[in-house]
């Protein structure tokens, strides 16, 4: 590499930015380089590179023995991942859409998640189950769900939900290195795909070397003192946009907590923030009732409800299937408008 030197001091190379999809792939690739027992399995993961680009380029780098297209047999290939993991491999298995879990959930929650416990810790299942989540591009009821509440609810599997490229890579590396089953849930809207609506925070600096982002630790995406917004995934982007606007227009400073992991859940981070601000807004693109948002509210209520100066607010998908018509889908998703309205009401309460 030759660098043309100018009369002034040499320029620094630009910080390297990647989309979330490319960052995820880099995480997988670096682990595959380091550890020959890592293989990738799923539908359309080989030549196609994953329909949401989660495995793009891996086939060319590692070949068909390690990047493997499966038939449409989720029960079989997820179960195959379990058996391979039990015998010393580290499979990364893709469930194309999280909405498809219905056809294979037994292998996931009754086997992958329970074998370690049932065996008194004698058998490990070091496997990553990665899956695409989320709506906002009119894919309707069966292809737009988030469902992390469902997975987080069932004991025995870790659940990580990155919101940005750097965390996507670090959490993938941590997930592969973890000796436990980790469900890695990536929102299609944060992947930075050229064929979906643009989202500025989907492209961001990513360190080139391998690194681990700790599973079970939330990150403070933005500091503030007037109210706490606890959220995950694409909603982090929306919450940050709302926070910028609230600061500029109303001088209100929101603190945004990006949970990053649901299992284990960083309850301490939530409590520390609410203790500071006294106001809590949970934004969750999963269904409202019986899920993540209720869990966050309960965490505060059962620790010290006196922390709260106003009732907890939740902006989630209401308990309806996600509609096709754009006007209806927009009405149910946790959009910036809904978040802004809730945040304004929260700080005035």
């Amino acid at each position, binding site marked *: 590499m030759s660098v043309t030197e100018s009369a002034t001091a040499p320029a620094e190379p630009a910080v390297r930015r990647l989309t979330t999809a490319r960052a995820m792939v880099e995480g997988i690739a670096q682990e595959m380089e380091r550890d020959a027992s890592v*293989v990738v399995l799923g539908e359309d993961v080989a030549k196609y590179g994953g329909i949401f680009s989660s495995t793009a380029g891996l086939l060319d780098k590692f070949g068909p*023995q390690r990047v493997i297209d*499966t*038939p449409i*047999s989720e*029960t*079989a*290939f*997820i*179960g*195959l*991942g*379990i*058996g*391979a*993991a*039990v*015998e*010393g*491999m580290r*499979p990364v298995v893709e469930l194309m859409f999280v909405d498809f879990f219905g*056809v294979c959930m*037994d*292998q996931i929650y*009754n*086997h992958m998640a*329970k*074998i*370690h*416990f*049932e*065996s*008194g*810790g*004698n*058998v*490990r299942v070091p496997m990553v189950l990665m899956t695409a989540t989320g709506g906002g591009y009119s894919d309707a009821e069966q292809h737009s769900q988030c469902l992390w509440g469902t997975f987080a609810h069932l*004991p*025995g599997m*870790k659940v990580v939900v990155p919101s940005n490229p750097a965390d996507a890579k670090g959490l993938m590396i941590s997930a592969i290195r973890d*000796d*436990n089953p980790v469900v890695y849930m990536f929102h299609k809207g944060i992947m930075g795909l050229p064929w979906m609506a643009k989202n500025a925070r989907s492209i961001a600096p990513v360190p080139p070397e391998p690194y681990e982002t700790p599973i079970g630790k939330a990150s403070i995406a933005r500091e503030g003192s007037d109210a706490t917004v606890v959220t995950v995934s694409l909603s982090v982007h929306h919450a940050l946009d709302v926070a910028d606007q609230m600061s500029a227009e109303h001088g209100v400073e929101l603190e945004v907590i990006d949970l990053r992991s649901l299992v284990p859940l960083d309850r301490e981070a939530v409590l520390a923030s609410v203790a500071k601000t006294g106001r809590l807004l949970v934004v969750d693109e999963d269904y409202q009732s019986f899920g993540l948002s209720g869990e966050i509210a309960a965490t505060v209520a059962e620790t010290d409800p006196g922390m709260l100066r106003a009732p907890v607010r939740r902006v989630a998908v209401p308990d309806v299937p996600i509609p096709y018509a754009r006007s209806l889908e927009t009405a149910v998703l946790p959009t910036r408008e809904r978040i802004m309205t809730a945040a304004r009401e929260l700080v005035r309460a």
Partner: protein
Amino acid sequence: MDDKTRLELYRVMVLSRTYEEAILREYHADKKPAFDIGAGLVPGEMHLSAGQEPAAAGVCAHLRRDDAVTATHRPHHIAIAHGVDLDKMTAEIFGRETGLGRGRGGHMHLFDPQTHFSCSGIVAEGLPPATGQAFAFQRQGSDRVAVAFTGEGAANQGAFHESLNLAALWNLPVVFVIEDNEWAISVPRGASTAIGSNADRAAAYGIPGQRIEDNDVEAVYTAAGDAVARARAGEGPTLIEVHTVRLWGHFEGDAQGYRPELADVPGRDPIPAYEARLTDAGILSAGLVTSIKDEAVARVEKAIDFAKSSPVPAPETALEYVFA
């Protein structure tokens, strides 16, 4: 088949039956006068394998300790035939801290990493992980094989079909063994399965399939020998269906009112039949039979004593072992 092999098949079947008779005794001992499933030293469901010993003995005779086996809710005969530690298995069935799973799994969730044995209470769902173990063995370049046992009722579950297709497609070293004991709890095979023999389903996946009649341990041994050899040689999966007999209920406490031929069932016991066959062949004598049975009883009672004298897991440890 040489005499030594035949005698060993008999010995394994006797050990297995002796074990099930002891568990039967222990299970019911403290559930009287009326059956209470949650009572006693071995509470919960209990699915015993009396009558099905030939399938386990005939197949597992060809396996090494490092071959993998997955089984179902009725696992004891298979575990014994594959060499799972009897003391730790019994302690697990009794829910003790010294059990295979420290008491966390119980009789339907026995995991022995030493022999790569596991079982699950969800029928047919042990087939996909077995194909995964076979996948790992193939990738690791060894000649190890995986064997997945399931029932004829489970052969209608999606996991069965998906697993056969995937194993065939990827030429995995796995043997699928169906124990056709004619009853899926209370539903006879003819009321659940569209075709007469599950072995015929193998053709749908392009793999060899064979059905063994008469619960014949030596026929199982021969068929399994071929299947395991094929798998070790990299020739892919095989399906074997063994027509066997469930001498007792689906679970203990099952009155079997749905089973019209109940009076004839004890006459189909494969062990006295095999004993007679080996006696006629001069391989067994009355004295040898007695000594084999006494040895089995001693071994089994030792395991039961070990279990009963082992500690119960402390409630404070209930949340442990979720994650590594």
